[in-house]
């Protein structure tokens, strides 16, 4: 069996590795994403006061600390059986909305857009944010940085710090906002809405206006019908902060809608011998292997799945964009994984509109932002949508609130199986009959999982000391016959 490796993955964390196994005929037999796992979090958390978790869990992810912060705070609310006052809830959601704008902007402009704007076969030296700026102009680059910076200002104001926020506590948040701060959030919110609209227009002009890209989005290698998961409000509209988790099948019918505390009834984890990773799947449907479709319990949790799982967006401009999305792509649900990049921008716009809604809500400056917990703590589960998927925090404590057990399902974990399936599928279409793998081919395989924006050991910040990206092709006998290098 031949093996092709992509190691490390372009633009993704250096700890990841893709192995593509070819058979004797030089066709793809299987493909796996092999990644090291952060170890020992449960043991690390045991014995700590649960109210420390909103400050500890953000350190698991260097990119979405806000998601863990809010998820842990909500889990603590559940552990202590305390209800957050309306102003506290709205401040948390306002912070969270700003975070989503910043995070989605970074992913789209730094990671995704270069593929479309420069083209997937452009030289690697150009296929990055610098190439993007060169093509669309410095002003666009400035707008991205400035918009992100403004969103971070909101996070800093409400979270106490821009990095690793500390503002959310069990029962609410630590401080109310003044009218001056509220006005600033509102002004920023309007600018972020403009930024969202600009970004969607850029996508229309550059991607939808290019028939080659549209063909790529609609192409079979990047089409994987499966179950879709996302948090929805009481009207089945997308909500990042709270609600119930809704799962729809590949035809769009609702399979289940569950409250956070019921997650173990719905999700099970599959263990495979070749990786530390566990692959969540839907219990009701069952594990049928690395395949998709109605009979397989594999599901995804992404911006695309959130739109598929919902009946619409809760804000007007995002709802228009949502309708355009499904009209263009032929109805719901959409199975085109590359369309995730488009869905991400619709979510960015929603988050910006939601920020304005919250910043103009009369309750948001109410001084009562926290209820001090008084009940005996025991167990709590909370779910939020992280940018890269549904995030679950589950803590069990003793009567003093000391953590006894914890379980986290981070956003990317939901997508381990779909990512592997996507790689295999894309690889099969582009690597055939022993054909020498060209650079562009390998990038197309990576394009299959980049929409998932996966987190692999993001909490580590060590410098990438490895060699530049290398792909190795082995014969069935295990001899290295060809080495490809990327990004030199």
């Amino acid at each position, binding site marked *: 069996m031949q093996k092709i490796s992509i190691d*490390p993955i*372009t*633009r*993704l*964390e*250096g700890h990841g590795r893709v192995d593509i196994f070819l058979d004797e005929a030089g066709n793809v037999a299987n493909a796996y994403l092999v990644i090291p*796992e*952060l*170890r*020992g*979090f449960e*043991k*690390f958390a045991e014995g700590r006061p649960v109210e420390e978790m909103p400050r*500890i869990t953000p*350190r698991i992810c*260097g*990119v*979405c600390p806000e998601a863990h912060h809010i998820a842990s705070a909500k889990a603590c609310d559940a552990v202590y059986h305390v209800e957050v006052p309306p102003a506290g809830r709205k401040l948390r959601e306002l912070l969270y909305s700003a975070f989503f704008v910043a*995070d989605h902007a*970074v*992913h789209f402009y*730094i*990671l995704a857009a270069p593929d479309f704007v420069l083209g997937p076969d452009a030289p*690697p*030296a150009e296929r*990055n*944010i*610098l190439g993007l*700026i060169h093509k669309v102009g*410095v002003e666009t*680059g*400035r707008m991205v*940085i400035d918009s*992100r*910076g403004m969103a*971070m200002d909101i996070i800093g104001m409400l979270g106490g710090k*821009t*990095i*690793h926020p500390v503002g959310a506590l069990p029962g609410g948040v630590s401080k109310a906002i003044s009218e001056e701060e509220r006005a600033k959030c509102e002004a920023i919110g309007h600018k972020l809405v403009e930024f969202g609209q600009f970004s969607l227009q850029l996508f229309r002009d550059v991607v939808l206006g290019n028939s080659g890209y549209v063909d790529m989005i609609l192409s079979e290698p990047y089409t994987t019908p499966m179950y879709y998961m996302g948090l929805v409000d009481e009207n089945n509209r997308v909500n990042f902060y709270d609600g119930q988790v809704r799962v729809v099948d590949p035809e769009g019918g609702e399979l289940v809608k569950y409250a956070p505390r019921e997650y173990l009834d719905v999700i099970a984890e599959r263990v495979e011998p070749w990786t530390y990773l566990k692959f969540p799947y839907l219990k009701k449907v069952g594990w049928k292997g690395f395949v998709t479709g109605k009979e397989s319990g594999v599901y995804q949790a992404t911006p695309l799945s959130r739109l598929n799982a919902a009946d619409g967006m809760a804000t007007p401009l995002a709802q228009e964009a949502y309708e355009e999305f499904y009209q263009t792509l032929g109805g719901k649900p959409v199975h085109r994984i590359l369309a995730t990049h488009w869905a991400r921008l619709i979510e960015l716009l929603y988050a910006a509109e939601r920020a304005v809604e919250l910043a103009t809500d009369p309750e948001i400056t109410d001084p009562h932002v926290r209820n001090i917990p008084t009940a005996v703590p025991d167990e709590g589960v909370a779910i939020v949508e992280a940018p*890269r998927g549904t995030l679950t925090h589950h803590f069990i404590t003793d009567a003093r609130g000391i953590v006894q057990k914890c379980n986290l399902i981070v956003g990317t974990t939901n997508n381990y199986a779909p990512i592997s399936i996507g790689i295999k599928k894309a690889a099969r279409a582009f690597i055939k009959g022993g054909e020498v793998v060209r650079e562009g081919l390998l990038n197309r395989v990576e394009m299959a999982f980049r929409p998932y*924006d*996966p*987190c*692999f*050991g*993001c*909490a*580590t*910040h*060590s*410098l*990438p*000391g*490895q*060699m*530049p*990206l290398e792909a190795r092709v082995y014969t069935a006998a295990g001899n290295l016959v060809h080495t490809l290098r*990327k*990004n*030199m």
Partner: protein
Amino acid sequence: MGTPASSIQCGTGNMKTLVLGLGNTILTDDGVGIHVVREASAACSSDDVTFAEASVGGLRLLELLAGQDRVIMVDAIQTPGGRPGDLRRLHPNDLRASLHAGSSHDLSLSGALALGRSLGLPLPRDEDFTILAVEAEDVLTFSETCTEQVQVAIPAVALRVLEEVHYTASEAYDGDGRTPTAAVPRARTGGGQ
């Protein structure tokens, strides 16, 4: 009553210098950069030098770097065959490959610097950007302490940081007339520059 046995003054020749420890202090050796900088900052005070710590990369890092004349960054690194605790002295160009590889969702250091410069942000020149990279053994296990070899290396790396910042050790005698502080040895390096 004695005076302190030694005090260290930092002088940078009026260059605004940021000494930045990068890492995650709950992931074993991944926090070494922060531990080093904490130790170095305890031994140095200067109007020109700022000691900071961060657990970020890419664009977030760019925001910290803008406006500095000089940056000394301390971080963990993992290289094939590297010995835990060894030190490498690098510049951003040594991480050339990471324009594409690197952080999952954000720019690498090189990419962030390149982007910042293209947008006209005031950033230090590559030759004024030093990376002290400590070889790590374990960056994947949750723990608040480093592995033994990395832990043992921290004081020497902290001294190296101070050397990079061009400190001078002033000698003083305590009331017992002890000999002045000995010259500071160079930190052990692992074969880098």
